[in-house]
């Protein structure tokens, strides 16, 4: 297993994809962080002329809580990046046929899949570090300059950063699980985009619309990912993510990774490679 793990690490870091995808994620998040910090801080200052009750009625978080909500964009918007890097660690092997030498060197395919799952975790963690920093640094700077509260002095903010890192870490392994089930790269990218950008957001909007506050949609991977962070822009849209304790949410997201990998191993990963 150690040897397989070492091989998988080397595969991840020996092509340019990991840092190209990371730069894309960081640039996107830095821009969004600046934009959101400016908009929310500006909005808050406009509202400050209103009586306190009216400000409460807007439902917008204030001060450090608002800062954390802005920082949470990292996980809410960019979890697709660790998801993709995990999934591509499998689909790239099929696409470039390196899966042949991989399975020749280690014919026990469950060892290969296990090593890919474990190797994805540190990669997800590094993505987390970069994505959270890329969101929070510019946003915190804007908040401080505009006279707001960046919340960096609060333990709660740092605990939030820690949970966001865990969120990113586990998302990479969810990607590996998905990749083992959908080994075709084009199909995988279509599924990832459809699920994260359309299917899940629409499903999660349904319960609040019909007046329910607890449903199975809380267990969808994106929803548990938000629950791990404990703060999300989605909560502004009435999708409460505070209900599930973050520890449970972390376990459920890990469960998604394991379940997808199990399905992938059973139905796809053991198939003939020709």
């Amino acid at each position, binding site marked *: 297993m*150690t*040897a*397989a793990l070492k091989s998988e690490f080397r595969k991840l870091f020996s092509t340019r994809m990991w840092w190209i995808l990371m730069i894309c994620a960081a640039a996107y998040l830095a821009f969004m962080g600046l934009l959101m910090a400016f908009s929310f801080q500006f909005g808050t200052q406009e509202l400050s002329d209103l009586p306190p009750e009216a400000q409460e009625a807007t439902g917008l978080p204030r001060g450090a809580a608002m800062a954390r909500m802005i920082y949470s964009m990292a996980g809410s918007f960019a979890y697709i990046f660790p998801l993709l890097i995990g999934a591509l660690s499998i689909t790239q092997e099929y696409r*470039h046929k*390196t899966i042949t030498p991989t399975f*020749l060197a280690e014919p026990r395919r469950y060892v290969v899949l296990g090593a890919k799952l474990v190797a994805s975790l540190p990669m997800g963690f590094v993505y987390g570090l970069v994505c959270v920093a890329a969101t929070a640094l510019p946003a915190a700077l804007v908040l401080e300059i505009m006279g707001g509260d960046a919340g960096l002095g609060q333990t709660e903010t740092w605990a939030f950063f820690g949970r966001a890192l865990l969120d990113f870490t586990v998302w990479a392994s969810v990607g590996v699980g998905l990749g083992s089930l959908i080994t075709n790269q084009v199909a995988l990218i279509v599924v990832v985009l459809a699920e994260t950008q359309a299917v899940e957001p629409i499903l999660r909007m349904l319960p609040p619309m019909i007046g329910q506050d607890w449903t199975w949609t809380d267990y969808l991977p994106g929803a548990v990912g938000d629950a791990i962070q404990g703060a999300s822009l989605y909560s502004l849209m009435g999708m409460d993510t505070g209900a599930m304790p973050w520890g449970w949410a972390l376990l459920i997201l890990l469960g998604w990774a394991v379940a997808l990998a199990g399905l992938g191993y059973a139905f796809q990963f053991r198939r003939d490679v020709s």
Partner: protein
Amino acid sequence: MVEDVIEVSHLTKRFGSLTAVEDLSFQVQPGRVTGFLGPNGAGKTTTLRLALGLIRPTGGGVTFDGQKYAAIPRPAHHIGAALEAASFHPGRTALAHLKTLAPEVGVSDKRCMEILELVGLKADAKRRVGQFSMGMRGRLGVAVALLGDPGVLLLDEPTNGLDPEGISWIRSLLRAMATQGRTILISSHLLAEVENTVDDVIIIAKGRLVHNSSLADLRALARPQTIVAANDPPALGRLAAGQGWAAQPLPAGPGRTDAALMVTGPTAAEIGQAAFASGLALTQLASQVAGLEQIFFRLTEGGGLK
């Protein structure tokens, strides 16, 4: 070094209604280079992939020294394989590609560089494989196969894409490795490509074994063919019939105005003697090269020697 015999026994693989390999049995001996031959689509690559556990057989199996590939610990240390011309990530360097495999094969990083030197890619070690020519990819594929210093080598169409220098390089490499007692199986769809490399030949067609012998025994199957023409064609016909030669009429063609016969069996010298003895003047007596390729076609097209 362990002397590994590759044993293929009753190997069968069906893809849906298509039978790729059917009841295939043969042995590959150590210390010799064995050519695994057949036209495209005969089932060569499928057989190699079955042997290496990449695809699962419908029936039968392949063992190396009595063990299935997947049951061998660190198998790439004992069995090296190069299957397709391009199983590389184009963005990875040659050295990095070997290094991704080294831990599982069970060799050091130093060995990766040594093997690149052996296959003549030392100067290109840090170049991305995407910039490699077909010949360089072929060499890198061989490097992957040799990484674990294996006792058994399986190469699928190793001469594909190689330049003449590369072909001569791989020939001497395989010869040297066979001399060390290793078991070597190389596939090809062209007998001529491996004719100077192999000791033994295994020929398959439509997934079935059609021939298994030494190259010398295969050569012995060749029967000389001679084109014969005479100024008196009916007399030539009578001579052929009288001698009991297998003769086929050839139409007049370029460079030949008279009707001629393609005679199979006797040598040109025997034909000339017989014609002289019967007072027949020959206008053409051309010995055809009884090439192995011709036997190969005969074996693979008819599905076996008739």
